[in-house]
C-alpha cells in the first residue's frame, strides 16, 4: 500500500496542521483528520496486531466498523486502551502507541502463534490443558500465559482526572443518524414544530454524503439543511454523539464525546456526557456498513473496504493505493473505483457477477478501468502489505474456474454488499427479517414507536432515502431532492462473499473475523463438530465477539455456515444485538455518582458538633454516626469502655437522630398498631409509650421500637435506623391495599425530629435543671413522656432506656437539634456529662441484653430472641399464623443467651459455638452475634444464639473463631447481664 495525501480536495482544514504520534513516529495531519486517516496518509502499513495470532494488520475501515486499528491513546492518567484509530479525531500532541505487540509492532513475538495456527483451531482450549491429574493446577499454570497473550490493550491503575455528566432529556422525536435520511426526517419534524433531537456520531452532519467528492451538489444541500436545522429552536442537534442503546418505553442512552477531540477537557467541561433521552417516537437512520469478502490472506494490510477507501479519498484526500484491485459483487463499488481511477490510480474491477449493468461497465471502462466481469480475488500476496492479487474467473457460487492470474497491486478493496446498522432496532425488538435480494437482515420500516429509514431498510437510492426520512419526520415542507449515483448500495447484488478454489478450500488463511482471527477453516471445523447453531458458532469460534461485536464479520460467518448446512441464512439464524452499539467508557455512565457522591450521605442535624469535637464517624446505611469520641491517644477499645463506664457512673448523651420515626394518625390508628405489632396497642393511654415488635409476613422478627400515644388519634412510632424506610413502605402498603377501611395516615417524621438519649444515674438531674421541671418517678415514670421546653424550644421527653440506666430520649425539632445538644453539654458540666458513640451504646445494650440488628438478622423468631412473651394471644397480627410453622416452633432452635468469656480476651462476633467435648465441626450449636467488654461486669461478654440456650445456663461451651484461629471457653448465662430487675432504669 502506497497511500499518499492528495494536494487538493477533502474535507480537512489544510490551514491547520497538527502533529500526532504513533509507535514513536510523528505524523502530520490536518484538523478534520482522524488518527486513521493521518496514519494512512503517512504511509503506516501496520496499525495493530490481532488478538490470537498477533498478525500484522492495517486499516480496514474508516468508521466504527474498524476492527484492526486499535491503539493505546494518550498517556498517564488519561491513557485509554483499544481506541479505534478511525474514530479518534486528531488534535495537536495526540499520542498513541500500538497494543498487543511485543517487543514491537513490526516484530511481534506473539506472531509465532500464527505458525501454529493449524493447532489453534476452534475449541482449542476446550480440548487441551486438561492435565494428566485431577484438580486445576495444570490448567492454571498454562492459563497465566494465555491471559498475558490475550487481552488486547493495557488498562491503567490511575484515577481518571476527567469528569463526566449525565443529562436527562425529553423529546417528541429522536432521530438517530444524520445522514441524508436522518437530516430529511429532522427537517420535516422540525418544521412541524416537534421537539426533535438529532443524533450524529460523527463530528459533522452528512453521513454517507461526507464521502462524496467535496464541492459536489450534496454539499450545497447539506449546508442548507444544517443551516435550517440550527435555525429551528425546537431541534437539538447532537454531534459526536452515539446512541448506544435503545431501552424499554422509548428510552435511549447516548454518549456525547464533548471534549475527546482535544488534548484535555477545558475547565468546567465534561470529557463526555451521558444523555438519557425519553422520546415519544424514534426514527432510526443509522445507515449500513459494507461487508468484506473472504478469500485467502484477505487480512494482509492493504485489503480494505471499498467504501472506506472512498471515504479516505473524498473526505480526507488520501489516495490509499496506486494500483488497486476492486473486488465486488454488486453495483456500489463502481463510483469509488471510478473516482480512484480519476485520482490517478490504476484500477482493476473484479466483479463476481458475469453480467454487469451496461451503464456501469461503460462508465468504468471510460475511466480507464480494467473491468473483469465474473472474476474475483482468490488470494492476496504480501507479507506486511499487499503486493499482488490472484484473480480468477469464478462460478456464481464463488468457486474458481480455471487458472488464476496475478495482478500486481498495492491495494485490494472489497465490497461484498451491505449490512444495515440495525443494532438499536434489534436491541429493542430482537430478530429482524432476512431480505433475500439484498442478502441481509432488515428491520421493518415501522414497529411500535420506531420508524426505520434510508440504508437501514435497504433504500434503493439516495432519492428514496431522502423521501423516507421526509415522510417519517411528518412530511412537512419541501420534499428534499438530491440525486445520487445509479450504483446506490446493494443494487443487483450477487449474494456471494466467500471465494474459494474449485474444491471449496482457500489457498491460504481466509479470515472472517479479523480481530479475533476467526478463519473460514474455524467455521468449517465448528460445523464438523456440531456447533452449528449460530450462537454455538459464535461462542465456539469467538467470531463476532471482538470489540467491533461482529459489525463486519457476522454475516460472512453466517453465510459460510448456511452454505455448509445447506440451509438459507434465516434458517441458520442471527445473533442478538446487545447494547452498547459501540463501546462506552464506564465513567461516562457514572457521571458524578462517584467517590463521596456515590450515594447521598445522611447526617443528623447535630453532626457538625460531632465533627468539631473529634468524633470518629462510622457508616450506618446512608447515615454517618459518631462511633466514639477518642480522648487523646485513645483507640476505639479504650474509648468505648471509658464512655460506657461513664454512662453507668455519671451521665452520657448520644445522638440517636437516626432512629426511624413515623407519625401514625387517624381514627383507626390504634387498630392499625394493634395489627402490625405483636403486642397489644389498643389500651395504650395518651402520655404513655410502649415497646413493640413487628414480624414479617412469614413470621420472622422484622423490627422493634417504641411507640408513644401523643393524642387520641395521634401516635409517634420509632423504628430501628436500618428498617425505617421498609417499615413505612410496608405500613403504606397495608393501608393502601389490604386495610383500605382503616382511616390511618402514616408519615415519616425522621427528619422532623432530632433525638438525643440521655443516660446514666445523673440524667434526671441534668434534664430537670435544664428544663426546669420535676422529672421524678411519680411525675414521669418509665414508658411515659412529657413535653418540656429547653432554650425556648418545645421538645418531647420520653422516659425510655436502651442502656439499662436511668435514661431519657429527648425529641427536638430537627433544626434546633444542635442547639439543644449544646445546651445539654453546657448544663451537664456540673454532672460530668459526656457524649458517647455507637460503640459504647452497643456495649451498654449488650450488657442489658437488648437485641439489635445483629440479632434481628431476618432468620430469628420471637422465641429465638426470648421475646415470645410479648406476643399477644388475644389477637391476630402480621405474621401471627406463619410464625407457628413447625420448624419455627422446634424447641432445639438456637435462642438468645449471654456468654461470659472465660479469660481475659474478648471473643469475636461471628464465632461458632460447640459443646465442651464436641468436635468443632459442622454448623455448631449456635453463633456469637455481638461481643463487648462489660465495664459493669468487668468481664468480656457476648450475646449468642445457642441451641436450647435458656436450658443451658451454667454450662461451659467452646467459642471458636476458625478464621481468627482462636478458641475461648464461655459460660452460658442469661442475656440480661446487667441489672436484670431494672432497678437502674426504673430508679
Amino acid at each position, binding site marked *: 500500500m502506497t497511500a499518499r495525501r492528495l494536494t487538493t480536495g477533502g474535507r480537512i482544514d489544510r490551514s491547520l496542521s497538527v502533529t500526532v504520534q504513533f509507535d514513536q513516529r510523528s505524523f502530520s495531519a490536518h484538523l478534520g483528520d482522524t488518527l486513521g486517516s493521518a496514519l494512512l496518509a503517512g504511509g503506516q502499513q501496520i496499525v495493530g496486531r490481532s488478538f490470537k495470532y498477533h498478525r500484522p494488520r492495517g486499516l480496514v475501515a474508516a468508521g466504527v466498523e474498524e476492527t484492526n486499528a486499535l491503539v493505546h491513546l494518550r498517556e498517564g492518567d488519561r491513557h485509554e486502551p483499544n481506541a479505534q484509530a478511525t474514530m479518534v479525531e486528531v488534535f495537536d500532541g495526540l499520542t498513541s502507541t500500538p497494543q498487543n505487540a511485543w517487543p514491537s509492532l513490526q516484530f511481534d513475538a506473539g506472531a509465532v502463534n500464527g505458525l501454529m495456527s493449524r493447532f489453534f483451531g476452534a475449541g482449542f482450549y476446550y480440548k487441551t490443558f486438561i492435565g494428566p491429574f485431577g484438580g486445576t493446577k495444570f490448567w492454571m499454570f498454562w492459563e497465566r500465559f494465555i491471559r498475558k497473550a490475550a487481552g488486547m490493550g493495557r488498562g491503567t491503575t490511575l484515577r481518571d482526572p476527567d469528569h463526566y455528566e449525565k443529562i436527562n432529556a425529553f423529546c417528541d422525536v429522536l432521530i438517530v443518524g444524520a445522514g441524508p435520511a436522518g437530516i430529511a426526517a429532522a427537517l420535516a419534524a422540525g418544521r412541524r414544530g416537534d421537539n426533535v433531537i438529532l443524533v450524529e456520531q460523527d463530528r459533522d452532519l452528512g453521513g454517507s454524503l461526507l464521502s462524496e467528492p467535496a464541492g459536489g451538489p450534496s454539499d450545497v444541500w447539506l449546508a442548507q439543511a444544517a443551516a435550517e436545522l440550527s435555525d429551528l429552536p425546537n431541534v437539538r442537534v447532537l454531534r459526536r454523539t452515539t446512541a448506544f442503546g435503545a431501552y424499554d418505553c422509548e*428510552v435511549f442512552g447516548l454518549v456525547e464525546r464533548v471534549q475527546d477531540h482535544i488534548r484535555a477537557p477545558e475547565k468546567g467541561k465534561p470529557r463526555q456526557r451521558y444523555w438519557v433521552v425519553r422520546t415519544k417516537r424514534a426514527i432510526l437512520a443509522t445507515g449500513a456498513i459494507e461487508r468484506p469478502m473472504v478469500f485467502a490472506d484477505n487480512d494482509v494490510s492493504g485489503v480494505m473496504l471499498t467504501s472506506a477507501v472512498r471515504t479516505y479519498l473524498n473526505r480526507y484526500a488520501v489516495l490509499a493505493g496506486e494500483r488497486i484491485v476492486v473486488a465486488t459483487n454488486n453495483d456500489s463499488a463502481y463510483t469509488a473505483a471510478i473516482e480512484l481511477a480519476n485520482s490517478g490510480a490504476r484500477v482493476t474491477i473484479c466483479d463476481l457477477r458475469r453480467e454487469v449493468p451496461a451503464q456501469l461497465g461503460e462508465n468504468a471502462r471510460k475511466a480507464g478501468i480494467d473491468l473483469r466481469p465474473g472474476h474475483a480475488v482468490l488470494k492476496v500476496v504480501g507479507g506486511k502489505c499487499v503486493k499482488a492479487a490472484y484473480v480468477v474467473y469464478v462460478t456464481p457460487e464463488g468457486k474458481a474456474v480455471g487458472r488464476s492470474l496475478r495482478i500486481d497491486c498495492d491495494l485490494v478493496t472489497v465490497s461484498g454488499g451491505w449490512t444495515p446498522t440495525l443494532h438499536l432496532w434489534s436491541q429493542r425488538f430482537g430478530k429482524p427479517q432476512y431480505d433475500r435480494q439484498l442478502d441481509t437482515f432488515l428491520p421493518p420500516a415501522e414497529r411500535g414507536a420506531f420508524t426505520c429509514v434510508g440504508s437501514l431498510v435497504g433504500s434503493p437510492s439516495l432519492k428514496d432515502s431522502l423521501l423516507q426520512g421526509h415522510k417519517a419526520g411528518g412530511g412537512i415542507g419541501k420534499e428534499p431532492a438530491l440525486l445520487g449515483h445509479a450504483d446506490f448500495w446493494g443494487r443487483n447484488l450477487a449474494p456471494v462473499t466467500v471465494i474459494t478454489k474449485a474444491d471449496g478450500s482457500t489457498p491460504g488463511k481466509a479470515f472472517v473475523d479479523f480481530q479475533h482471527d476467526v478463519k473460514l477453516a474455524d467455521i468449517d471445523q465448528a460445523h464438523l463438530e456440531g456447533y452449528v447453531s449460530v450462537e454455538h458458532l459464535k461462542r465456539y469460534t469467538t467470531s463476532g465477539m471482538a470489540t467491533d461485536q461482529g459489525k463486519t464479520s457476522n454475516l460472512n460467518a453466517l453465510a459460510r455456515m448456511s452454505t455448509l448446512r445447506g440451509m438459507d441464512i434465516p434458517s441458520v439464524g442471527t445473533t442478538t444485538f446487545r447494547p452498547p452499539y459501540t463501546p462506552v467508557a464506564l465513567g461516562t455512565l457514572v457521571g458524578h455518582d462517584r467517590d463521596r457522591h456515590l450515594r447521598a450521605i445522611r447526617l443528623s442535624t447535630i453532626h457538625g458538633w460531632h465533627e468539631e469535637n473529634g468524633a470518629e464517624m462510622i457508616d450506618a446505611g446512608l447515615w454517618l454516626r459518631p462511633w466514639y469520641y477518642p480522648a487523646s491517644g485513645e483507640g476505639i477499645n479504650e474509648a468505648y469502655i471509658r464512655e460506657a463506664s461513664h454512662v453507668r457512673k455519671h451521665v452520657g448523651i448520644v445522638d440517636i437522630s437516626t432512629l426511624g420515626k413515623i407519625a401514625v394518625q387517624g381514627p383507626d390508628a390504634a387498630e392499625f398498631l394493634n395489627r402490625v405489632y405483636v403486642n397489644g396497642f389498643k389500651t395504650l393511654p395518651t402520655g404513655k409509650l410502649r415497646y413493640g415488635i413487628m414480624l414479617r409476613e412469614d413470621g420472622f422478627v422484622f423490627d422493634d421500637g417504641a411507640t408513644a400515644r401523643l393524642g387520641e388519634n395521634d401516635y409517634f412510632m420509632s423504628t430501628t435506623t436500618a428498617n425505617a424506610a421498609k417499615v413505612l413502605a410496608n405500613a403504606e*402498603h397495608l393501608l393502601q*391495599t389490604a386495610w*383500605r377501611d382503616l382511616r390511618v395516615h402514616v408519615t415519616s417524621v425522621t427528619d422532623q425530629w432530632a433525638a438525643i438519649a440521655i443516660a446514666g444515674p445523673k440524667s434526671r438531674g441534668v434534664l430537670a435543671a435544664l428544663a426546669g421541671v420535676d422529672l421524678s418517678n411519680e411525675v414521669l415514670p418509665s414508658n411515659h413522656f412529657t413535653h418540656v421546653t429547653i432554650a425556648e424550644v418545645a421538645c418531647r421527653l420520653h422516659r425510655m432506656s436502651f442502656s439499662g440506666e436511668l435514661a431519657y430520649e429527648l425529641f427536638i425539632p430537627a433544626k434546633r437539634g444542635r442547639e439543644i445538644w449544646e445546651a445539654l453539654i453546657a448544663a451537664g458540666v456540673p454532672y460530668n456529662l459526656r457524649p458517647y458513640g455507637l460503640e459504647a451504646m452497643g456495649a451498654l445494650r449488650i450488657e442489658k441484653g437488648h437485641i439489635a440488628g445483629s440479632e434481628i438478622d431476618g432468620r430469628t423468631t420471637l422465641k429465638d430472641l426470648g421475646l415470645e412473651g410479648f406476643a399477644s394471644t388475644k389477637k391476630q397480627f402480621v405474621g401471627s*399464623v*406463619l410464625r407457628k410453622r413447625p420448624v419455627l416452633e422446634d424447641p432445639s432452635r438456637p435462642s438468645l443467651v449471654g456468654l461470659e468469656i472465660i479469660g481475659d480476651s474478648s471473643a469475636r462476633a461471628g464465632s461458632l459455638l460447640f459443646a465442651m467435648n464436641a468436635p468443632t465441626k459442622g454448623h455448631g450449636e449456635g453463633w456469637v452475634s455481638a461481643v463487648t467488654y462489660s465495664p459493669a461486669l468487668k468481664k468480656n461478654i457476648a450475646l449468642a444464639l445457642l441451641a436450647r440456650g435458656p436450658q443451658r445456663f451454667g454450662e461451659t461451651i467452646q467459642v471458636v473463631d476458625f478464621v481468627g484461629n482462636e478458641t475461648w471457653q464461655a459460660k452460658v448465662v442469661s442475656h440480661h447481664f446487667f441489672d436484670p430487675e431494672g432497678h437502674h432504669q426504673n430508679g
Partner: protein
Amino acid sequence: MLRIYCPVCGLRDETEFTYGEDATVRRPDISETDPKVWHEYVFIRENPRGRHKEYWHHVAGCRQWIVVERDTLTHEMFGSFLAREVTV
C-alpha cells in the same frame, strides 16, 4: 428503563418507584388463621409470562401504591391505577 404512569404524578422513570409484588395476590383477612391460606399468600406466585398486574410504590413521588398491568415478556404497559381504588 421502564416509564411508569402514576395516576397522581404522571409518567415517571422506574427509578422513582419500588416494585411490590403480584397485585392479584390478596392478603387474607386479618382474622384468617389457616396456615395454608397464609402460605399461599406469602409464598406462592402465578409468575405469568405475559400480562401481569403488579404493585409499584411511588416512593420518591406521592408515596401511593399503584397497580400496573405490564407484560413481563415485552415490558409493554397497559395502564395503572391507585391501589386503593382498584378492585383486583
